[in-house]
């Protein structure tokens, strides 16, 4: 790795200058001639039949150019995950017969300005017949609950409102428990939180009659948006072009088809003008997708030396009014349960339950934060019971390199044991652990604690579009243009792909021009929501650049009358080893190629798919089948300070020891870690979407407490490098965009216990819960005297 010039270096972001000068164009900044403003009418009822919609008065408002309801759509359903038999799509872009959550989209208008649009919205008359509604998932599962959708026919239990179930088992849990020296049984709840991306949801759609539907939309991948728009509008894929726009954050909340995207398109088709719809921040806090809340019942049996013998897990997900990604999160939670530690006996059940709440979505970690919080909290409790320390019990069970997973995957170069050891050493964990509760400051007002959380994530998995392709083409002057479908949502996709191309071709990064994320001009990409940017799109870029490199070497070999094996590639030129003065520049080589190879200007293509030998993705329902060939592991430590009088908790320091493979861009990796530490502390200590009967009580950043600069924590990084990059060879590097929320969340929970002896089973760890726990603790210790 030492001779690498670009990969592994903290190269500055390619899109940085655009962003710091305000020139970056986000969807909200796109303006087209004659563009209309769109607005959406939303249901005030959590569950109701639509009896009638009268739009006649709205249509007559001066300046209104189009009004649509569900009846104007083709009534084609869509969903986050669709399969013909098990998961037929259940969402409509505009409701037709029924609404199932407050805020559900019922109609849309396009007008010359927002005043006309809102006037029109006020004049749309909808007749509803309210139906009984249910908001709590346990209640929704009861046989007498109002039916939101029929339970998935593959689910055998007599529960109502089940969107889907994941069931997985191996070994024999009962035997495992009977062989255990200690069995712990606990229930954990992770609450409703939300993404809080700064750029609102927005779409501009412009339909040219007989031609193309041009779309700009704030998303996490243009190809999946094109696919879903094509299906619901019944247009061929080639008739829709989703253009690149910068994205102001997404974190899982902008993946699948949103109603406003469909509405902008359909309104544009009706009005024959461009239409822009931008969601207000309140709409985003109330009617858009929040993260998945999970209830986790966890039973774990261990030997007295800490070896995990068996685990029985039940997960209940409150997925909201439609199936959405609910069935994915209960599958992924299984994965996040079985990845980090050896687990010989498992019984897992996860239910995605319908309720009359807005649809929930993946949120950074997608099940890992919730599951690791549960497992890591319980593991610490088990360790204390067995008089083991939190580090040794984790080392005892941690996956070792090249371990086979029960689903057939392999962890390959797993660096988890090193992560655990390094994080513990760096923070002097064992010297500090236990002092908050027992040490000199145990009666002080401010008490400190330390805790660890271990987690794992996957890099790239099979879900549409499943693969990435990249095209690299030489320009006459020796510079390079890369065409990639990858979308930069802040994580630095364009930069790291440029680094890889620059490395393969020995071209300065500034001379790698990027054209990205345009469904018409760039090849397909898996999207920025499956943690595959570095591994899948990166390898595709490498392959494309390698192909270009081979072509250039072949031409050079010809021109220089030498064997390719004797050639050196350096600084946009190629020469015979030992004769750098007789080098041929890329400019010369490209010209030669065109002359001699029937006009071939030197273009390379590269493709990559995770698990190339596996035709199918795993079953969400049974978890059977290969899932990923690229697992990332981490151990994170949190140091907290608890104010025992106010109950406020501060995250003082977060240390992330991560098995990142190798960092393609260390500076970008650090930024990802920092952001996830911030999200974890928000999740743990301050963020909560408060809802009552399907309505959001706190739809603003004043009352949804996303971290401000006051709340930042020191964030330190330990790279456990387990892979390497070698020019011309496929590499495995791991994901860094999603896996580091979970460990910190779990570590904070454990650190709070270390500080004050209060074990919290539900997030967020509010001041009230802390004070309540302290009061109970005091009365308990009173009793023990």
């Amino acid at each position, binding site marked *: 790795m030492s001779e690498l010039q670009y990969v592994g270096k903290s190269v500055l972001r390619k899109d940085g200058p655009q962003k710091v000068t305000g020139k970056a164009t986000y969807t909200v900044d796109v303006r087209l001639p004659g563009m209309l403003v769109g607005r959406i009418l939303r249901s005030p009822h959590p569950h109701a039949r639509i009896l009638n919609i009268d739009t006649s008065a709205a249509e007559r408002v001066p300046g209104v150019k189009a009004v649509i309801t569900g009846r104007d759509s083709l009534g084609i359903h869509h969903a986050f995950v669709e399969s013909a038999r098990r998961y037929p799509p259940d969402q409509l872009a505009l409701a037709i017969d029924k609404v199932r959550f407050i805020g559900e989209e019922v109609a849309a208008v396009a007008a010359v300005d927002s005043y006309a649009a809102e006037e029109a919205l006020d004049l749309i008359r909808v007749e509803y017949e309210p139906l009984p509604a249910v908001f709590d998932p346990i209640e929704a599962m009861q046989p007498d609950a109002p039916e939101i959708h029929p339970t998935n026919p593959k689910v055998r239990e007599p529960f109502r409102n089940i969107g889907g179930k994941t069931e997985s088992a191996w070994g024999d849990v009962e035997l495992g428990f009977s062989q255990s020296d200690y069995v712990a049984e606990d229930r954990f709840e992770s609450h409703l939180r939300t993404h809080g991306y700064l750029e609102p949801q927005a779409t501009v759609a412009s339909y040219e009659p007989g031609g193309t539907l041009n779309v700009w939309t704030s998303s996490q991948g243009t190809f999946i948006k094109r696919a879903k728009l094509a299906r619901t509008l019944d247009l061929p894929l080639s008739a829709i072009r989703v253009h690149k726009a910068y994205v102001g954050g997404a974190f899982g909340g902008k993946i699948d088809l949103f109603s406003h995207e469909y509405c902008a398109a359909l309104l544009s088709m009706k009005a024959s003008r461009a239409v822009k719809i931008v969601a207000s921040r*309140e709409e985003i806090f109330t009617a858009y997708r929040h993260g998945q809340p999970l209830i986790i019942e966890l039973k774990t049996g261990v030997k007295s030396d800490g070896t995990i013998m068996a685990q029985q897990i039940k997960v209940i997900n409150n997925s909201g009014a439609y199936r959405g990604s609910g069935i994915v999160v209960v599958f992924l939670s299984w994965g996040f349960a079985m990845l980090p530690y050896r687990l010989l006996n498992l019984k897992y059940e996860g239910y995605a339950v319908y309720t009359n709440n807005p649809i929930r979505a993946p949120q950074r970690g997608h099940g890992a934060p919730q599951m690791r919080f549960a497992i890591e909290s319980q593991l610490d409790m088990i360790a204390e019971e067995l008089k083991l320390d939190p580090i040794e019990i984790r080392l005892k069970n941690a996956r070792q390199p090249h371990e086979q997973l029960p689903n057939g995957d392999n962890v390959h170069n797993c660096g988890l044991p090193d992560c655990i050891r390094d994080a513990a050493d760096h923070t002097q964990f064992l010297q500090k652990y236990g002092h908050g509760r027992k040490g000199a400051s145990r009666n002080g007002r401010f008490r400190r604690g330390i805790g660890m959380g271990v987690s794992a994530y996957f890099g790239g998995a099979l879900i549409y579009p499943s693969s990435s392709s990249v095209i690299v083409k030489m320009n006459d002057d020796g510079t390079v243009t890369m065409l990639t479908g990858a979308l930069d949502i802040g994580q630095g996709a364009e930069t790291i792909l440029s680094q890889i191309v620059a490395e393969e071709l020995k071209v300065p990064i500034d001379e790698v021009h990027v054209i990205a994320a345009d469904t018409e001009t760039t090849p397909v990409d898996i999207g920025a929501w499956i943690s595959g940017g570095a591994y899948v799109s990166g390898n595709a870029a490498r392959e494309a650049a390698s192909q270009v490199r081979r072509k250039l070497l072949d031409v050079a070999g010809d021109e220089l009358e030498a064997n390719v094996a004797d050639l050196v590639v350096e600084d946009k030129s190629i020469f015979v080893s030992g004769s750098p003065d007789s080098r041929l520049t890329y400019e010369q080589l490209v010209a030669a190629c065109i002359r001699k190879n029937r006009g071939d200007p030197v273009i390379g293509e590269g493709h990559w798919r995770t698990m190339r030998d596996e035709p199918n993705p795993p079953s969400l329902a049974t978890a059977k089948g290969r899932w990923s060939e690229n697992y990332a592991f981490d151990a994170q430590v949190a140091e907290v300070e608890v104010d025992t009088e106010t109950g406020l908790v501060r995250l003082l320091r977060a240390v992330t020891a991560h098995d990142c493979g190798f960092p393609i861009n260390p500076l970008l990796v650090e930024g990802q870690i920092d952001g996830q530490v911030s999200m974890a502390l928000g999740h743990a200590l301050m963020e909560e979407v408060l809802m009552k009967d399907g309505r959001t009580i706190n739809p603003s950043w*004043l009352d949804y407490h996303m971290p*401000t600069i006051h709340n930042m924590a020191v964030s330190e990084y330990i790279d456990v490098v387990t892979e390497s990059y070698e020019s011309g060879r496929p590499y495995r590097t791991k994901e860094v965009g999603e896996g580091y929320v979970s460990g910190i969340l779990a570590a904070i929970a454990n650190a709070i216990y270390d500080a004050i002896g209060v074990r919290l089973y539900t997030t967020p760890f509010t001041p009230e819960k802390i004070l309540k726990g302290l009061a109970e603790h005091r009365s308990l210790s009173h009793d023990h005297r």
Partner: protein
Amino acid sequence: MRLPRFQPLQPKSIEEAAEFLGKYGGVAEIMAGGTDLFPRIKYGVASPEVVITLRKLSRESQIAIQDGFLSIDSVTTLSQVIRSELVREHAPLLADAALAVGSHQIRNMGTLGGNLCLESRCTYYNQSHAFQFVEPCFKRGGEICYHVPKGKRCWAVFAGDTVPALMCLGAEVEIKTATDSRRVSIDQLYTGNPLRPLAISPTEIVSKILLPKPSARTGWAFAKFSLRGGLEFAGLSVAVLLEMMDDGLTCTGGRMVVGSVSSQPLRAKKAEKALPGKQLSNDLFYEIAEMISEDVKPFSHHGYSASYLKKCLKIQVKDALTLASQRVPQSP
């Protein structure tokens, strides 16, 4: 989010603003910094036909000593208050409270007068009602309360941070109409009625805030408690002012005000009576904090429960008194 249509008027002075109010009284609203009125207009809970904007007046606002009082024009921005040497010298408690408001940008726009006249707040009220909480609550002219279902009254909270400080400082407020002027103690500005928290009529405008000369030897502190420690409104706030004898140890009296827990800031009058003649000590602070916590009945609001606020209040008062005592200038 666009502002709905209205007619803005740009008065060239407070007096002219008062004249405009005289003319448009019931259908006009005053906009000082815009940080309170505009969000409410965007949410649709305020819909004035006329907006009298004082933004340009802030550029010429005055802070000066006048007849022994520190006189602050109501259109002075909070940032100007914080930076003013006169304020730092004569009323540092006010500067601290102003520094706690919102964010730097909000402090650059928001005015002292505007902070005094903040509309009372509730999460169910301060949002749009297109499809959520559609039926109007008490504060929106309706007959229900969402915060306390089946409740018979409104529970909106007055959250202006500078007011507890101004009450401790014994501030007076000059209020003008087109033809008249009156001056009241700031305590009299608040009704305790969440539906109409201010004792100001639609044709009146606050023109000046006047602070009397401070006592020779005081200790003071302002504490604002919130989950994040910045940006948001207070869960609760506490302002204390201790007046001391020359020995710097014995208290002659003081004022303590709790803000953001009720429909008006609350003077802790009973606890204030316990101050004269006492030596400052931790025990005294605990005793006072206990008294105030007993006396004050906080509303639950913005996600904080009443019982939590009661507990937290004790700690904030104790901390504030401790800090105030540390600031008492010691005898030479």
